[in-house]
């Protein structure tokens, strides 16, 4: 087994239009690595939802992706307000996104559920007022 391959992305919280850029560049990287389309789609959806969440709720954050020969690990970290009720947040259709974000077509309450659906494991570590860390794994 060789050394894993790592990528670091800063997710800019001030610029809504740049959300999704990390997912887009990972999509390109994974395509170049010869990863199958199904896996690429799962990773990119999970990352995309995570990025959008960080921009909407946490004023941005970081995304670190590690590609191992058998799995892809995604670590999303922010210094946002934290998630008050994680069970509610995992429920489809539950959202705390403000009205102006919903008007843009986001905040449908599918972020975390979609992340869970598209990954093989998802661990949320959150503390109110401190931030949220989400560790996702997709097996390849």
């Amino acid at each position, binding site marked *: 087994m*060789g050394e894993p391959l790592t990528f670091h992305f800063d997710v800019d919280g001030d610029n809504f239009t740049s959300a999704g850029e990390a997912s887009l560049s990972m999509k390109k990287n994974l*395509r170049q690595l010869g990863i199958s389309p199904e896996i690429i789609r799962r990773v990119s959806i999970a990352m995309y939802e995570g990025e959008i969440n960080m921009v909407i709720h946490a004023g941005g954050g970081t995304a670190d992706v590690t590609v191992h*020969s058998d799995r892809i690990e995604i670590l999303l970290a922010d210094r946002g307000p934290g998630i008050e009720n994680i069970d509610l947040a995992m429920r489809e259709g539950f959202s705390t996104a403000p009205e102006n974000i919903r008007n843009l077509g986001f905040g449908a309450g599918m972020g975390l559920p979609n992340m869970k659906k598209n990954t093989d494991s998802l661990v949320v570590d959150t503390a109110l007022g401190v931030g949220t860390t989400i560790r996702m794994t997709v097996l390849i």
Partner: protein
Amino acid sequence: MKQYKHSVSLDVEKCKGCTNCLKRCPTEAIRIRNGHAVIDASRCIDCGECIRICPYKAKKAVCDKLSGTWRRAWNIALPAPSLYGQFDNLDDVDYVLQGLLDLGFDEVREVACSAELVSDYTRRFLKRSDLPRPVISSACPVITRLISLRYPMLRDNVLPLLPPVEIAASEARKKALAEHPELTSEDIAVVFISPCPAKVSYVKNRSESRATEIDAVLSISELYFELLGVMKKERTPTPVSRSGMVGIGWASTGGESAAIFSDRYLAADGIENVNRVLEEIDNGSIPDLEFVELNACPGGCVGGTMTVANPYIAQARLQSIRRYLPVSQNFADGEDVPSDCLDSEPISYAPAGVLGSDRESAIRMMREIEQLSKSLPALDCGSCGAPSCRAFASDVALGFSHPSECIVAMRKQLRELLDSEEEGSL
């Protein structure tokens, strides 16, 4: 894998090896090698951006010539609807069609008529629920090729219909054989009058598997002056046009969508815009839509690189030509979509630039690329012959280039060398 054939050629004499096309290419298919541009066939999507941008006219679309060897006993012209938008003060499409007959074609079959059939079939498909939404138009060959390269998960969204020109070709051939029993299929040449080189590539790639009925593709730009010479207003043309508003509308963006008779559609054009829309669909982050029409060229087919008129002027002209036409003059029989109008060739997944043969070596190579990328100046100046520092790093890792090609890094090294020598002489 079968090599994809293209229709963009380079005049090495005219090419200065500048970075205009290099920077403009949406799939990073171009490199500058030995002082001129080289196109990577596995990445090129025939969008024509390099032809549009080249200041030296070194990039050209390759297609058949009016004086070419394609002529047979019975020659059928298939004019694209965008052809009608090329002429000033044209109030009747029949002048153009008569002009084609006067140029020696034995018969004319308007692609616009078949476009109306495709619109009819599209409406039938949209009534069915087995196609994933949004359904994506299959008319622009650049888009289907782009999906094949980058969006494998959207392949099932593509309308499984042949493009209008293919349906026009097969109908025209059938009709000619029925009306002229003395002819065999080999006596007939079906010739598309095309606004873009992507259609030339479409024919080239499909002719090998005999999946096309089109025998030759001529450019609108070549026929334009020939047609001007024969299109005389004094003579009333034979009335042959049978296309309506819908068919002619296909020439510009939004025309195909308007014909689905629903407002839940998206129509986009220009290759960069189209790429962004596909990215959004791939992410699942678009509104609830039925249909997506994507055209590689600005303005739609009127913006093709083998046209003459400004695409927006052509579109304005088409608006006045369409004004008093019936909505549609061609309707399909029955309820179903005939199987000969379905595309039997599935869209393959053909990703470009995949590293290494196995995952371990691919990961190793990408780590190398990442490391090298970080050491590069991030100017994306193109002087090394690659479109970006990242693409250059990739080329180096794959052995297609050498780190010394980076002139910024070399200049820095040279400066350091000079400085250390100066210090030594003090």
